C-alpha cells in the first residue's frame, strides 16, 4: 500500500490537474495519515471546486479529524453539486445520526439506497441506525475509520450528551434554563477552566434584558445576540422559550459562521430537550 501511495504521489506530481488526488487522498485517509490526506484533498478541491467527489473526500478527512461541522458543510456542498451523490448522502446520514436526528439519518440513507439499491453497506447501516448503533453504522458506511475500543466507548457515551458530535461540545457550547442553571454542554475559558456555571448565571440576566430591550424598542422577538470580544466571539440564542444556548469560539471563527454553528446547535438542543420530555 505504501508503494501505491508513492506511485500515486509521483503520478499526481506529473499531472497535478488529474483526478488521481481522489485515490491518493482516500488511501492516505484509510491509512490514518490524516494530515497528508487533508493536504491532498484540499489541493484537489482547489483545482476542482465543482467536483462533488472532491468535496466528499475532503468531508471524509474532516470527519476523521472529528471536525464534523466543516464535514457537514462539505457533504452539503457535494449534494448541491450532485444531489444523488452516494458518499455525501451516507456522510450526512452519519452526521445526522451522531446528533441524534434519526429521522434525517434514515431519510438520507433511504435516498442513498435509491441511488444504490444493492449496496450492502447501506442496508446494514439503515438497520444499525434504527438500532441506535452509531459506530457500527459508520463502519458499514465506510465513513469513519473504526475507532479504538476505548474511543468507541466514549463515542457511545457522548450520544447521551446534548451536543454530541458537534465541534466544541464540551468546551464552547452551553445550554441553560431561563434561571441560569446549566442543562448541558460546557464552557471552558482559554486557560481550560470550566466556567459553565458562572457564565450561565450571568447569561440569565442577559437574556431577560435582551427580551426587555427588544420589546420596549419594538424590535419584535429577539432571535439572537452576537458579540465580538477581544479574545473570542459569542452567540446567544433561544432554542426554546425556556432555554438559552451560548456558543463561544475564538476570534478565528467569523461571526457569520458562529451564527450558523449556533443554528445547528439550537436544532440539536431542541431535539435533546424534546427527548427529555
Amino acid at each position, binding site marked *: 500500500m505504501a508503494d501505491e501511495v508513492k506511485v500515486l504521489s509521483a503520478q499526481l506530481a506529473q499531472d497535478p490537474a488529474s483526478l488521481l488526488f481522489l485515490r491518493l487522498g482516500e488511501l492516505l485517509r484509510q491509512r490514518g495519515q490524516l494530515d497528508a490526506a487533508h493536504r491532498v484533498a484540499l489541493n484537489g478541491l482547489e483545482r476542482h471546486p465543482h467536483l462533488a467527489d472532491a468535496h466528499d473526500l475532503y468531508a471524509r478527512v474532516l470527519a476523521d479529524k472529528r471536525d464534523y461541522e466543516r464535514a457537514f458543510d462539505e457533504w452539503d456542498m457535494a449534494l448541491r453539486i450532485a444531489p444523488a451523490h452516494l458518499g455525501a448522502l451516507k456522510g450526512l446520514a452519519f452526521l445526522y445520526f451522531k446528533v441524534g436526528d434519526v429521522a434525517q439519518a434514515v431519510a438520507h440513507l433511504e435516498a442513498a439506497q435509491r441511488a444504490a439499491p444493492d449496496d450492502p453497506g447501506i442496508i446494514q447501516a439503515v438497520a444499525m441506525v434504527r438500532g441506535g448503533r452509531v459506530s457500527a453504522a459508520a463502519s458499514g458506511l465506510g465513513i469513519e475509520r473504526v475507532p479504538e475500543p476505548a474511543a468507541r466507548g466514549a463515542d457511545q457515551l457522548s450520544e447521551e450528551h446534548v451536543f454530541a458530535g458537534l465541534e466544541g461540545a464540551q468546551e464552547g457550547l452551553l445550554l441553560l434554563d431561563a434561571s441560569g442553571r446549566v442543562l448541558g454542554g460546557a464552557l471552558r475559558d482559554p486557560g481550560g477552566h470550566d*466556567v459553565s456555571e*458562572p*457564565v450561565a448565571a450571568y447569561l440569565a440576566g442577559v437574556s431577560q434584558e435582551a427580551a426587555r430591550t427588544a420589546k420596549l424598542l419594538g424590535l419584535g422577538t429577539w432571535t439572537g445576540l452576537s*458579540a465580538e*470580544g477581544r479574545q473570542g466571539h459569542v452567540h446567544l440564542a433561544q432554542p426554546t422559550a425556556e432555554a438559552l444556548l451560548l456558543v463561544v469560539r475564538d476570534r478565528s471563527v467569523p461571526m457569520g459562521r458562529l451564527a450558523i454553528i449556533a443554528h445547528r446547535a439550537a436544532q440539536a438542543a431542541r431535539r435533546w430537550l424534546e427527548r427529555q420530555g
Partner: protein
Amino acid sequence: MTGGGVARALDLVTRVRGVRGAMLVSAADGIVVADQLMEGIKGAAVAALAASLASRLGRAMTAAGVGESVFWHLQGSAGALLVVPAASAILVVAVAEPEVNVGLVRLELLRAAEAVG
C-alpha cells in the same frame, strides 16, 4: 470632542441604508450624550436599555474568557440594536431595520467609536 465631531461620527452611521438612528450613550449611567434618531424612536429608552444590556453582557463575556466586547448585535424579528463601546466609556449605538447590512453598520460604528475617542 467637538459638537461637530460628534455629529459627523453619528452621520457615518445613519448614512447606512436601514439604520433608523444612532446615538452616543454614557456606558456608566445610560444617559444620552448625542443622538440622530428618526421620529418615533425613544432615545432615552434606547440609551438606558443599551447600557444595561452592555453591562450584563460584559460580565458574561469576561466570565467566559473572551474579553471585553468590541461589537455586539441584538437581532429581533422586527429590528436590530447594534453597539460598539468606544474607549471613553461611551457606547456608539445604532437602531436598524432587520434586513440592514450588519457588516457595514459595524464598520461605521467602529469608525465612529474611533472618532469619539
